[in-house]
């Protein structure tokens, strides 16, 4: 779970309340979709249960009591292992795009339209990201260039697939028989 490991890594910097963690996560890692409070508190409860973090103090107030968490040495090990463990290459190919193109071909729908629609969406997102670079910090810039590079790779595949489409339906149809 990259989100919970990222939260744990934020906790490694200094002890924090759930609210502070959510704010830090949103600032650094959630360019478009803020993290739900529920996910933060669920992660913290799990960290405590697994011995990755413990409660250092509880502040009682008008609202619900606020627990402050500190990472444990076990938690630091978890972060260390997660950061350096290479990700399975398979996770980069979990996009539904290929599946949707293949289904379009098999069902007689226009795969070119699937590709064109996706291309347009990708280009709009790339334009947005390029605009977001201004004013972004170093980690923000890296996050943006990471997403741009992946969108660019998709677009190159889309362009190549568009070129191949005349041949692909026949191949798939032949395999079906």
């Amino acid at each position, binding site marked *: 779970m990259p989100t919970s490991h990222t939260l744990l890594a934020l906790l490694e910097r200094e002890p924090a309340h759930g609210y502070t963690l959510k704010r830090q996560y949103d600032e650094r890692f959630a360019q478009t979709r803020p993290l739900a409070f529920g996910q933060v508190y669920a992660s913290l409860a799990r960290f405590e249960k697994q011995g990755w973090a413990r409660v250092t103090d509880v502040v009682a107030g008008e609202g619900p009591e606020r627990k402050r968490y500190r990472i444990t040495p076990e938690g630091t090990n978890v972060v260390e292992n997660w950061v350096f463990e290479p990700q399975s290459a398979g996770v980069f190919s979990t996009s539904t795009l290929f599946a949707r193109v293949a289904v379009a071909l098999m069902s007689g729908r226009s795969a070119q339209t699937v590709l064109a629609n996706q291309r347009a969406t990708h*280009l709009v997102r*790339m*334009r947005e*990201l390029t605009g977001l670079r201004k004013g972004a910090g170093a980690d923000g810039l890296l996050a943006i260039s990471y997403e741009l590079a992946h969108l660019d790779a998709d677009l190159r595949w889309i362009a190549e697939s568009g*070129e191949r489409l005349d041949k692909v339906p026949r191949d798939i149809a032949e395999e079906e028989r």
Partner: protein
Amino acid sequence: MTGTSVLAANDVHLSYGDTVALRGASLELTSGERVALMGPSGSGKSSLLHCLAGIIRPDSGEVTLEGTRVDTLSERVRSRLRLERMGVVFQFGDLVPELTLVENVMLPLQLLGRKKREARLTAMDLLAALDIDDVAGKRTGAVSGGQAQRAAVARALVHRPAIVLADEPTGSLDTVTAEVVLDAMVSLSTQLGAALLVITHDNLVAAHLDRHVEMRDGVVTRAAQVLR
């Protein structure tokens, strides 16, 4: 589309001997807009740009610059119009190697008859805006590729043209340097009110621009993909 037409090609055909490069290509750019011209190698992008720039006269069809038909004009008149109303940037900048960066940027102004002192001041302002005024006195061989290409951008914009045409302007640069050059070109052309047409096969370059046009087999196939 809103805005005044700056440069347009209408049903342009062009062949080099037996090779057909353009088969009825049409494209219009309006004032201040920033357009990416994309497409595979051999699709006709550079040929269309050369027709739009008046470097090549098409076999048939029309090219208009700010409402005036230009493809029927003489080579001399087209050259003069290009000098006055257009800026051009190529992949390798095409700066004059015997001149310093600032002398290169001064060239269009001097060709247009401006005084040397005034041309130098204007050129230095642009070089400062592009953050390369510290190497203004160096020749092109003594500066980095990114610095030379930013000087090429300055030279294309120094005379405040209506449009800048750029053919793979960052094709010879690494990604990070390309970003610096593109940012400079886009922001400066916007600041000076020039439209911008950039030929590129690179999606990351196109992402800096507002509209994408695609060419295939000598025609414009996708002419209205507005990104914002």
